[in-house]
């Protein structure tokens, strides 16, 4: 079990399903920060984001046997977290909209050091800074692309939109940001 950290997500899922459910803790450890960060970009409310991530892990555990280990686990878990976030946004539309201006920017600044190694740090910071001006449909792909460093293919699997559609949304998002003289 000492090599558990070296195992791929997909192999780990197999072990959780067939041998030891306690190993699910390793999956939670691997993804809780990433998912929380992503959900925070969408929800902008720490408490609600935590609830969404917790629900996502619970939902993922319940449906773990349905996960096809030939696919990428990270896309699958992001998809579940994404759905949870969208459900919360729909449920609390009014409340979340009211939070828009006062959302946890401090949280984003706190996360900065995680992205030190990215090649275009400036772009990343700009995206973060002006994320709130983007409608949700553009915020989702641009967050996944610039801030979560997912490929178009992975974003396509998470959002269930074609790769072409992802490209179009990211371009549109960039144009909106450019219009605001950001880039």
């Amino acid at each position, binding site marked *: 079990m000492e090599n558990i950290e070296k195992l791929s997500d997909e192999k780990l899922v197999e072990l959780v399903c067939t041998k030891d459910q306690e190993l699910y803790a390793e999956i939670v*450890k691997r993804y809780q920060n990433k998912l929380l960060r992503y959900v925070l970009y969408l929800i902008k409310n720490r408490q609600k984001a*935590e609830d969404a991530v917790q629900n996502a892990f*619970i939902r993922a555990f*319940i449906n773990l*046997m*349905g996960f096809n280990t030939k696919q990428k686990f990270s896309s699958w878990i992001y998809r579940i977290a994404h759905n949870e976030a969208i459900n919360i946004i729909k449920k609390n539309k009014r409340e979340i909209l009211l939070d828009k201006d006062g959302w946890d920017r401090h949280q984003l600044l706190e996360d900065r050091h995680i992205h030190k190694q990215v090649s275009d740090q400036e772009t990343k910071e700009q995206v973060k800074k002006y994320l709130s001006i983007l409608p949700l449909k553009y915020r989702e792909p641009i967050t996944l692309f610039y801030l979560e460093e997912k490929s178009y293919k992975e974003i396509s699997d998470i959002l*269930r939109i*074609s790769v072409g559609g992802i490209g179009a949304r990211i371009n549109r998002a960039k144009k909106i940001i450019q219009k605001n003289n950001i880039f």
Partner: protein
Amino acid sequence: MTKTKDQKNKKILTEVMKEIDKKEIKMKPRIFFVISSLLLSFGLFLSIALASFLINLISFRLRIHAPFQYLRFGKPGYLPFLHVFPWSMLILAIASIIIGIVIIRKYDISYKKSFWGIAIGLIVFAIIFGLVIDKTGINERASKFPPMREMYHRESVGPDWLAGKIIQVSERQLTLLTPFEKKTVIVKWDEDTLLPFGSEFQEGQEIRIIGNWQEEEFVAKGIDASNVKLPAPPVPFGRNRPIDFER
């Protein structure tokens, strides 16, 4: 990462694992997903099959009852058209296709390929398959049996329309035999009756009429005698050959 954030994230891990340890949440068994997947595939098959079958019925009824021919009379033909057109089947066929599209959205292919391409493909497939079924002549055979009659809606007498074969021609009066009800109807017409294809009626000719009932007689507002081909009458249940309704 700050200490606060560490603690908060630890909370997620603790909460999730606590629920797992307490057995408050359980994994759904693999069989659940296998059955779900099979049901989904079956649902997709069923919706496409139903849509094709309904399109086949619509094609049959458009061919046999020819609702668009009532539009030749202009405004007076609108109501008979609305009566005869198979609206319920059209609505059901559209609903089946929508259900099929909703099911397709559950599959990865819906976003990996062009979704609208798939949706249009599904619609085109259902239409072509439905038309091919109709071409096989299965409807003609099935519609002759009384239990299927309701589905095929083989009526030739309506509140404001009538179709049948002329068995007698008199001065501004026709005696008509309806194919399904085998009912003899006296049809009267006058100088105001719309006769887009003339008034040279002959015995044995098949016609469509719009108008109103006045007791047992039908007063024609319009008579269409061009290329009208009425369907064969139904076979009584348990018999193989069609009845000659002229007997």
